């Protein structure tokens, strides 16, 4: 949570006076399935990047470079639109075990 302000410090009418404050809210913790990207298969066609509802496909210079797990909700849309099946969905639990 952002630091709580006193009522008289808040902008009138619930106006949010800074853009993109939602970036402080990391939705990656919602994830049940994790997209795993296989760079060797990827053709950087950008279909996953275009569709990802959470802007979590990372690109550089017109090429895909990875997935932003801070925000990725694990919906699997990227895997489903990939024409060359370069993304697999794996259960998050697998990575919990690995981390242990």
């Amino acid at each position, binding site marked *: 949570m952002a630091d709580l302000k006193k009522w008289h410090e808040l902008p009138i009418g619930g106006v949010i006076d800074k*853009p*993109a404050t939602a970036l402080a*809210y990391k939705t990656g913790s919602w994830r049940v399935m994790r997209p795993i990207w296989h760079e060797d298969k990827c053709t*950087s066609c950008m279909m996953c990047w275009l569709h990802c509802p959470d*802007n979590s496909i990372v690109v550089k210079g017109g090429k895909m470079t990875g997935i932003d797990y801070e925000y990725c909700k694990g919906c699997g849309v990227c895997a489903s639109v990939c024409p060359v099946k370069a993304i697999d969905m794996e259960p998050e639990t697998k990575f919990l075990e690995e981390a242990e």
Partner: protein
Amino acid sequence: MAVNLKQLAVEFEDPNKIGITSGHRLCPGCAAPMTAKMALMVAKHLGYDVVVGLATGCLEVSTTIFPYSAWSVPYIHNAFENVAATISGVETAYRALKKRGKLKREKPIKFIAFGGDGGTYDIGLQALSGAVERGHDFLYILYDNEGYMNTGNQRSGSTPPGSYTTTAPVGKKLPGKPQLKKNIVEIVAAHENVYAATATVGEPIDYMNKVEKALNFEGPSFIAVLSPCVRFWRIPNDAAVSITKLAVQSKYWPLYEVEKGVYRITKKPRSFKPIRDFLEQQGRFRALLSRPDADKVISMLQDYVDKRWERLLALEEATKDKPAR
């Protein structure tokens, strides 16, 4: 422009430039943010700054939970029923300030209103009609998920027959909502001074080309985007894109545009799939499909989409080079 994805990906390498950011609370796999981001990228790519207005609904509620906002462009929300009125006021203020020389800006501004189907077909229809009739220069994007989803799946004027909703459930007596969808594109197109089109997230290039056309159209424009709610369509989280492709292939959601009364079908599939295929992929039709009278509803729908397609072909032929204004 003819959208070049690689070029867009370079331009929006920093995702915070898109206009809608990460950190919003729409369900995983929801199509509403896809609908929004594709439109915003096209507008910015064309060199416009964008002001966004939102009607109450999932896209609005889930992107603006205080003190968070997932918008990196100027954004205004007023109420459920009046996003078209709100954005037309903003657009008028912009024009007035410009006329008096009080705005020194390099980039022209485009005004985009997003509304759900409840906020567009139903409660916001009057505001939309007024704004289009007055001829404001704005783009209205309907993200159509065929129900009042933010409040838990109530029937709207856009809900198709046989789809399960809490207010028109498929029960012992009735196979859900009996009425067909309201034809919103025809309603908007009937204002004549307008560019009106259908689109969907499963055909992104078609959609983005239409956004470009709409933004460059002088005056009001409207795009109805079929935008699945994975939650209440009861489809897997990864299915929003594939289901809308099927919607196009089954004539459920024909892709076309009407520019000042002139019809053009923008995608003519070489072969069609039966409407049953589209219904069977979605849990919201499961209760319907298990009823003894399911075939009756399905054939009614099939008959409707077939006739509508023939009608569209005929309208395309009849209105060629005959704009209403």
